[in-house]
């Protein structure tokens, strides 16, 4: 199962991605987590220290040169299948891969690093049979149709604020236009009785992220969102989210 997680910043995308990953890894599944958000906080949320993070893909200048080329001719379809293990880091039974931001690769034409990035993501999503969870910054439109057709589902996370919900709705309709029909809405920080507005074209509500006092306390001290005392609540949440993508 390949799932993309999107939504406005700060709504809990990364936290949910890490929980889903840990839940699947706990079932002995081979899980790949891809951080495609430029804030790069998926690693820290897994409890990794800054210096233990794998290098973001866009910073692999030599590799980009070698596989894609630069200036003159570039190979839009680079070979990447042998790169996956080397570029990722194993964290608690999961593979973590950081995309990074194209801007970091230097000014000028961003085609080469962009191409490697997209080819890698496409390879993971299209060819590998593992469970892949992608933490996205924006919507899915930059993935391209071919890649999107291999994504099984899109989780859109939102807070009950109008700005969060409008972003969710925009992401959802863009993804639908690109053929990604399987979608689920997950609400965070919403009061119990809150219902998403009917007129906003949102995906069906799959789950609500429970309020965890321990997490709020933890965030001040540490970046990790794992090993919280409320594990049964988190498991229930993951079950509900994943169930919405099962045939």
């Amino acid at each position, binding site marked *: 199962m390949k799932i993309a997680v999107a939504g*406005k*910043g*700060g*709504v809990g995308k*990364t936290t949910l991605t890490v929980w889903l990953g840990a839940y699947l890894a706990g079932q002995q599944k081979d899980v790949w987590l891809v951080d495609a*958000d*430029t*804030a*790069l*906080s998926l690693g*820290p*949320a897994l409890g990794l220290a*800054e210096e233990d993070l794998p290098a973001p893909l866009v910073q692999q200048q030599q590799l980009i040169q070698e596989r894609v080329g630069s200036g003159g001719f570039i190979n*839009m379809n680079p070979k990447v299948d042998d790169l996956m293990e080397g570029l990722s880091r194993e964290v608690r039974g999961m593979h973590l891969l950081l995309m*990074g*931001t*194209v*801007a*970091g690769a*230097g*000014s000028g*034409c*961003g*085609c080469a690093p*962009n191409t490697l990035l*997209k080819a890698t993501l496409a390879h993971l999503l299209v060819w590998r049979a593992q469970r892949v969870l992608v933490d996205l*910054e*924006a*919507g899915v*439109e*930059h993935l*391209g149709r071919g890649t999107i057709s291999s994504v099984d589902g899109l989780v859109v996370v939102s807070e*009950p*604020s*109008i*700005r969060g919900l*409008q*972003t969710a709705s*925009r*992401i959802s309709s*863009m993804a639908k236009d690109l053929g990604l029909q399987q979608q689920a809405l997950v609400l965070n920080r919403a009061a119990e009785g809150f219902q998403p507005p009917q007129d906003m074209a949102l995906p069906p509500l799959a789950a609500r992220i429970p309020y965890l006092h321990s997490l709020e306390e933890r*965030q*001040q*001290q*540490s*970046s990790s969102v794992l090993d919280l005392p409320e594990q049964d609540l988190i498991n229930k949440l993951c079950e509900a989210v994943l169930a919405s993508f099962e045939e």
Partner: protein
Amino acid sequence: MSLSIAFSGKGGTGKTTIAGMLIRYLLRNGATPILAVDADSNYNLNEVLGVEVDTTLGEVRERMKTGEMPSGMTKDRYMATKLEEAVVETDNFDLVVMGQPEGQGCYCAANTLLSDFLQKLTRNYASIVMDNEAGMEHISRLTTSNVDKLLVVSDPSRRGLQAAGRIKDLAHNLNIGVESVYLILNNVREEPSERMQGIIADMGLELLGTVREDETLQEYDLEGRPSFELPEDNPAVQDAFALFQRLIG
């Protein structure tokens, strides 16, 4: 010379809200005309400012790239017209929204046109306020003009601060001529503890000031009311104005 101030930070830390407050501050101080640039692909600066957006520059770029052009007009001319149409004009400020990031394929040609357009456009304003996502992708690839001050917004969480530290490093590696980088701590309930001040100092960040967590602001957000319309005596607005005064006088 215009003054250009850019915002960045982890998502959800309030950078857009504070960018809105800066626009208001500049208006009040007569640092006009003002151009607001929303360079976050999950754009919502317009919602904070209370204006409607029809077209984003990203949409125009996409059209240019896919080649849907009317006949009898060169691509450049057509794109220039469309880009001009994408500038939202209000009585108080103008707004451009970058919108969607690049899709598949090469965007170099379209980006060159877009970057020329932005360069010409920004010359017309006394103040430019840019709202960016953490990767600052749009600004670094599209503007060659200098960013005078980069304000990195974080909430008082560990992950927010880590992202802020990374943004500071990234800003130095980018070709955007950032003159100075400051940290704004948003949504604080108390002044930063010594421990937090230590973390901030370790990251080499300079704290410009804090903005209090505010209930009225949260209500505005929940209801979708533009926070641009908050009363001026609102504590969060007051905090923001105080730190802008320290920054630009």
